[in-house]
């Protein structure tokens, strides 16, 4: 939102604060300023000039002698096509320079150069006495305020509201531009029929005739241009001025184009068609509020006027609408038709219904100036909802002190609130009853906490000294999930893995490459790009991308990510499962070493974890994939990435469900067992098995026959080659047997050994003993 410093100065009596310090005050006490831009810089020292002669010079230029009244005459070289004797225009003192051998003193300027309008087709043509300043046009400073910081302040979307703040901050008086007495007290000719007073709490209108549609005076054009608005014609410019000033959006209908004498405010009929001033066609439904005449919709309430009743050069009669619409309804319609206008942005902040008639009074004054000869027809049409003033807010000063943490004089609180035009009555000592002015009562201020802000910002938060809070000492509840994830990170980093973060979005293409079904993924309705439309149900596609990118400049690397898998559910929120995905990429080698290392990482995280061969998924090397089990539960997967997915090397991958791993890691509390006093005895067994019989399975089988006295079965080595037959291997295990109560006898160990051998032979395995 842009504010003109000059305009604010007109509205605040005796304003003596320059733009820069004013901007700082507004930032500290009201809303965030984003900067100050100059406007109309060329207007400094500019005066009205009368062109006396214009002699052709080189090119398209003319050498003109201009009369500046008391400032004398100047010779100016001018390139504008409309520079001709008899013209009244604007001269600006930009210094002397030689153009085509002629000394040119100053310049004649176009409307665009002066910042008055967008016209740069020639020098400006205006009226006035030579040597006079350009009426109502002086260099200005435009203060830009962050719109987000005005979200809760409907009143600050216009200059009067900001001027009121400035007046309150500096202790000056606000100059209200509205003269309510200008409104006629006669009956209205326009009829108004509001169907739902909740959706349209107030609709006011006033009819004018003898209207002359023409360009606005330069002061009005300049005022709008300085704020970034385009001057269009006097009537439209006037409505824009009211919006930037009060800030009441209004709309002018060409009265001759209205059918019937009644303006209806009603929900649109389902499928009702409407063409906006922007020449777009809209198909409406009952959730859109429209303004209609006998023939149909003539405006989309609070959003945009209609093309059928738009004013034109030929307009002579105008009905000026000044209405108040429910914020939620305007917002809903504006987002449904995807059209945000200066009006809808204001209405959705909940405007003050009291402003509708004020705007009509202001319009009367403006129209008399900018459309000379205009006449009011009848009185103000005004239909409104009963709106009792909200009850005053009880403000206990002791409570206020506790909220701010600073002592306050009751008189100071009262002064602050009254300057902001709140009503203050002391109901009993230390308690104020505060009534809220209408422009703050729509949404902004409704409870005592809102008044804390009013007082706090005006005393200045820098006047509050920091105080240490007194709170009970308490050990915060633990977050075991997060703690565990940090531990996992530490293990992986110690093992040489570097942490990556990937987006939660994945593409259909990446998902398909991994053999997942896109439709199994939760879909983003409004993705930032079509390749980021699915929520990741696996961290692997992201990690794959990291591998591909880093493989371009690294021979060997280790990466990991801890993040959430998002799994769609029929109802409610999706399931979010924390996963660890780790990968080791090596350009050299056959991939076996990488798998060893990544399995070692799994072992470091989960001592005793077991891999169990399982059918490979499409993204996995068909002969190098296994499920990981820990304490009997499946916790993840270890595999080599399918070589067709990464052709420059081999990538070993680990994927763990961290919720499951954590549950298992935390399951058993640590208890000390006494160190054995009796020696154990060890013996080795070698099982002859097929080359692809997994050693892990052989180990479990051996274990299953070992009995309670066997403390451990450890893999020693495996061997294939002579004298074994082709396709065979020998897998050796070391078994340790013992008892906490005694030393085992030779007979006992021999029996254990015999039982295992017998058991394995029964399963069809030969043993080397």
């Amino acid at each position, binding site marked *: 939102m842009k504010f003109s410093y000059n305009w604010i100065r007109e509205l605040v009596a005796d304003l003596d604060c320059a733009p820069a310090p004013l901007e700082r005050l507004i930032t500290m006490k009201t809303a965030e300023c984003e900067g100050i831009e100059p406007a109309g810089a060329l207007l400094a020292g500019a005066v009205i000039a009368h062109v006396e002669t214009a002699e052709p010079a080189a090119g398209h230029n003319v050498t003109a002698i201009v009369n500046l009244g008391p400032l004398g005459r100047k010779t100016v070289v001018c390139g504008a096509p409309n520079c001709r004797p008899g013209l009244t225009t604007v001269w600006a003192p930009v210094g002397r320079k030689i153009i085509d051998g002629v000394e040119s003193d100053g310049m004649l300027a176009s409307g665009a150069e002066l910042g008055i309008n967008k016209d740069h087709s020639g020098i400006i043509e205006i009226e006035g006495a030579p040597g006079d300043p350009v009426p109502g046009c002086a260099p200005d400073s435009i203060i830009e305020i962050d719109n987000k910081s005005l979200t809760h302040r409907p009143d600050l979307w216009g200059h009067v509201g900001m001027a009121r703040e400035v007046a309150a901050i500096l202790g000056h008086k606000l100059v209200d531009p509205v003269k309510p007495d200008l409104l006629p007290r006669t009956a209205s000719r326009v009829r108004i029929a509001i169907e739902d007073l909740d959706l349209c709490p107030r609709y006011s209108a006033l009819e004018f005739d003898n209207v002359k549609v023409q360009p606005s005076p330069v002061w009005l054009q300049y005022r709008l241009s300085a704020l970034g608005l385009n001057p269009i014609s006097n009537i439209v410019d006037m409505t824009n001025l009211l919006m930037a000033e009060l800030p009441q959006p209004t709309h002018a209908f060409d009265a001759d184009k209205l059918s019937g004498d009644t303006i209806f405010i009603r929900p649109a009929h389902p499928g009702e068609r409407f063409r906006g001033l922007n020449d777009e066609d809209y198909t409406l439904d009952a959730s859109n509020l429209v303004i209609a005449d006998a023939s149909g919709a003539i405006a989309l309430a609070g959003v945009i006027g209609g093309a059928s009743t738009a004013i034109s050069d030929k307009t002579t009669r105008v009905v000026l609408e000044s209405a108040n619409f429910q*914020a939620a309804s305007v917002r809903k319609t504006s987002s449904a038709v995807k059209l945000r206008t200066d009006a809808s942005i204001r209405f959705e902040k909940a405007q003050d219904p009291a402003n509708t008639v004020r705007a009509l009074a202001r319009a009367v004054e403006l129209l008399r100036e900018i459309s000379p000869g205009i006449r009011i027809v009848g009185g103000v049409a005004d239909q409104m909802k009963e709106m009792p003033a909200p009850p005053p807010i009880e403000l206990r000063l002791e409570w206020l002190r506790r909220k*701010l943490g*600073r002592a306050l004089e009751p008189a100071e609180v009262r002064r602050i609130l009254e300057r902001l035009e709140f009503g203050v009555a002391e109901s009993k000592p230390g308690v104020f009853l505060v009534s809220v002015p209408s422009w703050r009562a729509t949404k902004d201020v409704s409870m005592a906490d809102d008044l804390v802000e009013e007082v706090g910002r005006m005393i200045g*938060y820098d006047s509050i000294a*920091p*105080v240490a809070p007194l709170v009970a000492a308490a050990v915060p509840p633990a977050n075991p999930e997060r703690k565990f994830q940090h531990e996992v990170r530490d293990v992986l980093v*110690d093992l040489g893995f570097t942490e990556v973060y990937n987006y939660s979005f994945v593409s259909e293409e990446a998902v398909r490459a991994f053999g997942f079904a896109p439709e199994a993924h939760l879909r983003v309705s409004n*993705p930032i790009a079509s390749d980021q439309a699915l929520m990741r149900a696996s961290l692997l596609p992201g990690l794959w991308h990291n591998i591909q990118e880093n493989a371009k400049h690294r021979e060997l690397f280790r*990466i990991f990510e801890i993040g959430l898998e*998002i799994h769609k559910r029929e109802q409610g929120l999706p399931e979010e499962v924390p996963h660890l995905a780790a990968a080791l990429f090596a350009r050299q080698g056959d991939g076996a070493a990488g798998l060893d290392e990544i399995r070692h990482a799994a072992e470091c995280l989960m001592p005793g974890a077991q891999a169990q061969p399982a059918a490979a998924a499409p993204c996995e090397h068909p002969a190098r994939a296994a499920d990981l089990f820990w304490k009997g539960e499946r916790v993840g997967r270890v595999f080599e990435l399918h070589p067709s997915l990464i052709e420059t090397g081999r990538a070993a991958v680990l994927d763990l469900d961290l919720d499951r791993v954590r549950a298992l890691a935390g399951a058993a509390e640590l208890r000390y067992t006494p160190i054995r006093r009796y020696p154990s005895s060890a013996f080795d067994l070698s099982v002859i098995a097929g080359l692809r019989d997994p050693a892990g399975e052989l180990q479990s089988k051996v274990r299953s026959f070992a009995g309670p006295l066997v403390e451990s079965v450890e893999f020693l080595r495996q061997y294939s080659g002579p004298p074994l037959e082709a396709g065979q291997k020998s897998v050796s295990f070391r078994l340790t047997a013992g008892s906490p109560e005694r030393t085992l006898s030779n007979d006992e160990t021999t029996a254990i050994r015999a039982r295992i051998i017998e058991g394995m032979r029964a399963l069809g395995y030969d043993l080397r003993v």
Partner: protein
Amino acid sequence: MSEDSIRELVAGSLERIRAARTLEELEAARVEVLGRKGALAIAGKEMGKLPPDARAAFGKLLNGAKQTLEQSYEARKRSLDEGALSRRLDGEWLDLTLPAPGPRRGHLHPITRIQRELEELFRSLGFAVLDGPEVETEYYNFDALNIPATHPARDMQDTFWLEGGNLLRTHTSPVQVRGMERLGPPLRMIAPGRVFRNESVDASHEHTFYQLEGMMIDRDVSVAHLLYFMKTLLAAIFHREVTVRLRPGYFPFVEPGFELDIQCLICGGPGCPVCKQSGWVELLPCGLVNPNVLRMSGIDPGEWNGFAFGLGLTRLAMMRYGIDDIRHLQGGDLRFLEQF
């Protein structure tokens, strides 16, 4: 054997022991002189042939000779042993300047580093670290934070909507609500985590970034307490005293709401390019918790109140490490990540 010949034997043997250059030579000398059948043993046997009055003196002489030679032998043996050990060890020379084998330590992501630092800091101040889902309901992300569907404040955060009507959380604030519901008052909590906004990505904008939400609810929490707490917190984050200021800011879940600025750490106040010549850097939004928010989470605002704040972890990491392009953070490039 005469006493003289004993003395001669001792002198000669001492010389031999000293001259022995290997353990074998030394052992041969020991066997010859000190061995069971060695010269001194033989001399001892001859002692019986001496007249009784001469025996004592001769015996003493022999004992003395034996001690002298044994000491000499031991000394020489020690010396030869040491030499052998040091030669063996010298042969085991290794070049310890070679790089140690095995992978180098990996690197934590810069956001993880900052986040952990803050988690530890807040835990030390008695704050619980809470988590909430990344996919949220409209209720937790907006309504329960005093942002109903028709509220224009919804526009302040461009939202990713999901099929089925849920959304990706646009801030970590929903965890406030979940924390209040789960733990109740009094409450001190933070919620660090990933948030999403539907914005196009460039060097300073991301659709995915990290925030840390904080909240304290107790009996009497004031703006003065918020100021104290923020100063303490920021001093710990920046490892130095910081000057802060509050100015009005609008966030529907707090009332009053503030933007907290810190005095520019680069120029200290006079103004520089980092603070855009203002002397202040906008750091975080905060405020006293709106009573409506407390009420919606089942907390009586007549009895409890509190403050809340939101810290941009991504922004903090960028400030701390001087990262000039936000896209690096989710880019997965090891040339970037290995710097942390």
